[in-house]
């Protein structure tokens, strides 16, 4: 029972993160803020989903595999986001700055 509640909570919060990520992806003004939102989907969303599934399947081989996936995606997703953002900077993409808050064109 307690496991089921924890599973539901993890998957529910994960879904919330994915929803936030998707809203951010559409609403944020530029590439860097958007990739930040997409990163939330990749790490927090997917991570909580996998955690929920692992709680659900208990002490089995499936859980071990899920934990492996969690471990690897925990490192690879942010690194991927980092690499994409980094190459955007190298291509000369300027970050968006809120108008009137100073900065180059503020």
């Amino acid at each position: 029972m307690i496991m089921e509640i924890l599973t539901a909570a993890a998957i529910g919060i994960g879904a919330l993160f994915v929803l936030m990520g998707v809203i951010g992806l559409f609403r944020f003004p530029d590439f860097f803020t958007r990739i930040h939102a997409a990163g939330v989907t990749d790490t927090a969303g997917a991570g909580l989903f996998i955690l929920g599934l692992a709680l659900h399947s208990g002490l089995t081989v499936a859980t071990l595999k899920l934990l492996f996936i969690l471990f690897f995606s925990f490192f690879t997703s942010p690194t991927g986001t980092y690499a994409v953002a980094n190459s955007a900077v190298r291509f000369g993409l300027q970050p968006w700055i809120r108008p009137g808050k100073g900065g180059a064109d503020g």
Partner: protein
Amino acid sequence: MDEFVRLGLMLLLLIAATSIIFMRNVFASIAVFGIYSFLMASIFSVLAAPDVALTEAVVGAGIATVLMLAAFAFTHSTRDAPLNGVDSLGGVVFLVAGALLLFMLADAPPIGSVNAVNASIVAERYVEDAPKEIGVPNLVTAVLASYRGYDTLGELTVIFTAATGVLLLLGRPDPAGITTVGQQYAPRLEPIRTHPVARIVSKIMIPIILLFALYVQFFGEYGPGGGFQAGVLVAVALILYQFLTAPEIVAEKLPNRLFTTLLAGGLLLYLGIGVMGPVLGGNFLDYSVLATAPLDGQFRGIFWVEAAIGLAVAAGIYSTFRAFTAH
């Protein structure tokens, strides 16, 4: 009578295929390519495979021809007739053909129906006889590598042709010309391979990906996996390696020739195993004759066919990637 129709269609197919190769006029070759697809569809329907014939007619003669004509119209500098306005005759043909297709769709069995031809005759045969005939625990591998080995050979040929096409179009990458994307545009910042985060994470991941690729390759006989998936994983590890390594070192450690050789070598290995059948007194791609016991022969054949697929897929995907990054 049937034999004559089949032979005649085959002959026409041969003529169409050879004339496409020797044609100088692109527009004419596209037209003949449509005829080729139509002949192919006719052969399929003579061979009592109406679903394949429909697919060939729609995709080969229909969409592929339209796409090629559109591409031709967009790239040709001195095109005669611009593609604007709706051709009323074309519209009528489109509507009639579409209505016919939808009408025929009503006769198709529902998805997952036990009465569908593939579920009732073929599937039963595979499920009941594969353990005795092939002996591999994974039924999917038994079907893919042995029963339908000919189809899989075709799939590998498609990958080979696609990769060869990319390499021919983009040119053989110049060994010295490999650059990390974007490097030449913003010399003020270091490329990603010098960044500690990317370096450390990738260096940890590459061996694990390769190990997992081997697992997927050899586990294919027992569970999900096999050469196609393992080949993609190896290609991913190589792509990651290229991001991390200076272009000169990549060119030295992973010469282009290695991958073109592996691409062709994989396909040749598959064909060679297929030819071993007739040589040892069996059919083409019949693995039972490869060892004294038929099941051992099946195991041996599937192992090498999967290895051939893995090599060709890894080489094909990585050399395609390399061709793009070299530009």
